[in-house]
């Protein structure tokens, strides 16, 4: 156990001190995560995991496909920004782990868009590392990513390409302790990806350390199926914090979420429709209220997930 924590901490320190690079961000995708303020690195166990912590896909209990749509900063006249996400997680077996596919996009029609395509793999390592599953389950994973930036230049900018793309990747680990503590680390864009049109513009390496706590019933206040999560993000010599909570009620059908970060307050809910053969349809919604941008009704995120 001590060795495991030591290795994990060393990994975190190593990547957190790497040179920071340059512009994609993961603030805009994953409705469940957004409902929790984006604090999801140590919670990831569903089709949003490829975005936040690919190692979490190893903990997905079922095959899951999710689709997200959104409207960012609604109510601002002249602002039309949408983020979309599609993800699929396919657990193969305990031996072979899980694979995942994801596409995320944020676009302003007629102006600019970012697209990320990723293929991921993750596996629980308990058998390899001879870890006691009664104490912890440890998984590790990696994403191979293609980043693409497209800009609708004026016709006068004929000397520039309309899009630039580059390959990069993520690596991640996630430890879920049986006492409810979760500890995750994800290092994103570990390979410099130059997406500049005219100058070198490398997507910044982003390291995220996540901590979570889960309880079937939170002591004292007796909140059922309660999860609290905290993400600390290290990016380009800056540090950001995200935090959120989640609770399931109505026989674990309805999820209620709250969260926030420096720039916004988040809330959300999700409802699960269960069918035969463990088939489930989950509808999620998240609202993000920005603190500084004026006159906005907030950003609205919807998703539909299918577990089978």
């Amino acid at each position, binding site marked *: 156990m001590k060795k495991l924590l030591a290795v994990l901490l060393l990994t975190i320190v190593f990547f957190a001190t790497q040179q920071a690079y340059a512009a994609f961000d993961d603030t805009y995708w994953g409705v469940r995560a957004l409902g929790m303020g984006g604090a999801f690195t140590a919670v990831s166990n569903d089709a949003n995991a490829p975005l936040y912590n690919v190692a979490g896909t190893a903990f997905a209990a079922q095959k899951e496909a999710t689709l997200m749509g959104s409207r960012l900063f609604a109510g601002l006249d002249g*602002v039309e920004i*949408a983020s979309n996400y599609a993800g699929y997680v396919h657990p193969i077996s305990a031996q072979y782990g899980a694979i995942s596919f994801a596409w995320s996009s*944020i676009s302003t029609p007629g102006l600019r868009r970012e697209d990320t395509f990723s293929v991921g793999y993750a596996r629980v390592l308990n058998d390899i590392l001879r870890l006691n599953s009664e104490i912890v389950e440890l998984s590790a994973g990696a994403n191979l990513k293609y980043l693409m*930036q497209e800009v609708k*230049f004026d016709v006068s900018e004929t000397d520039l390409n309309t899009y630039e793309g580059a390959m990069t990747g993520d690596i991640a680990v996630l430890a879920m302790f049986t006492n409810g503590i979760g500890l995750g680390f994800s290092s994103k864009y570990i390979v410099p990806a130059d997406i500049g049109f*005219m100058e070198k513009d490398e997507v910044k390496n982003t390291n995220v350390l996540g901590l979570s706590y889960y309880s079937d019933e939170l002591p004292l206040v007796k909140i059922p199926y309660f999860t609290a999560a905290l993400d600390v993000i290290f990016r380009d010599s800056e540090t950001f914090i995200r935090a959120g909570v989640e609770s399931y009620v109505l026989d674990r059908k309805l999820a209620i979420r709250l969260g926030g970060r420096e*720039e916004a307050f988040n809330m959300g809910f999700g409802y699960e429709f269960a069918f035969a053969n463990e088939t489930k349809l989950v509808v999620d919604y998240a609202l993000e209220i920005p603190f500084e941008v004026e006159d906005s009704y907030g950003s609205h995120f919807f998703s539909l997930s*299918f577990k089978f």
Partner: protein
Amino acid sequence: MERIYKKLSLLIVVAIMVSFLVVDVYAASSEPYKTISSVADFSFIEPEVKHDKIDTVLAEGILNAKIRVDFGEATSAKAVLEYKIDSGEVKTSTNDAVMEDRDFYLGTKKGEITKDNSIVEYRIAVTFTIPEENNATSEYVLYAPADASSTTFVTANVISKIEGDIAAGGQISVFCGDQSKGDNGYVTVSVSPNAYDGEHHVVVDFLEDASSSSGTGQERENVISAASVDVEGVTEINNPIIIKNLPLQTETEASKFTMQYQNGAEWETAAGANLSVDKTYQLYSFAAADIGLYRVIESISLSKSSYRPDNRIVVKGKIGSNYPGFEFKYLQQGDSITIYNLKGRKIRKISADGSDPTIWDGKKDNGDWAESGTYIYQIKLKDGGDVISGTIAFVW
């Protein structure tokens, strides 16, 4: 039944996924490209260009002068000066220009050129002399936006002041300086008797300090040019002084412009003002009946889009003196622009200082360059009203 429900749900997920993709791709591609800026879109004053002067002669009163700059190689330049006289005849100078480093030579006097091969559009101010028959000289400033790969024309503009009895010989002062840069602006030259018969021609410039706006958020007035009409020792003028080269491009725009006269206390609509159009030059002229200071006012009904920048995409590597960044128009002192990234974090606040346009140069409040990305701007007008929002893209 459950199996059908399961398949139906999966079908819905896939269908919505596809529709999102289709809608997004269509929306992204349906926006038309902007057309390239025309010459008329340029401001004629380039703040960072040295305020050079051009010597020439007003044998018949030059109303239009054009400079053509043709860059064949990065290290050399060829320039031809064309100017048009009242009769409509176009004269062309025979002087070739040689560009060495960033300096530009035409004729016998040195000018200065601001050139950057990475910048597609830029402006030029040159100094040159053209001798004419009567040995009189006056000075001109030419500001020429040019395209690195093509030839562009622009009309030269100066402000002239007439002093003394020109018919008996005297002085002509040509305003071509820049008072904001410590230049008193006037250069006086001698003219021969009867060199100027009939109308006195005064060519109007866009004064740098005349580019300002006033009024409320929805109704603002934009001062687009000003002219000083002054005859020393003369209290009235018998022949109207014609002011030309007003920056109007189409006849239909005439109703938007009025000529104002400074009566010593305030600006008032000039009595007998008679704006007329010269379709040949695509310019308007105005007959000044009184001595004094005049200005042309463009009355503008502003909508939210009036304040938005025309250039919604700026490339960091192209930013320079002629490509300063995002240009927000018609803002007055007291107005402000705030730039947010897509996280909703404020990265820059700009307070308008009254100069037009107000620029965001792509830098954050701490002086660092903003990252590539889509940004939200919010414009706040000092006189209230809605916040004006929009999106822009800054890329490296």
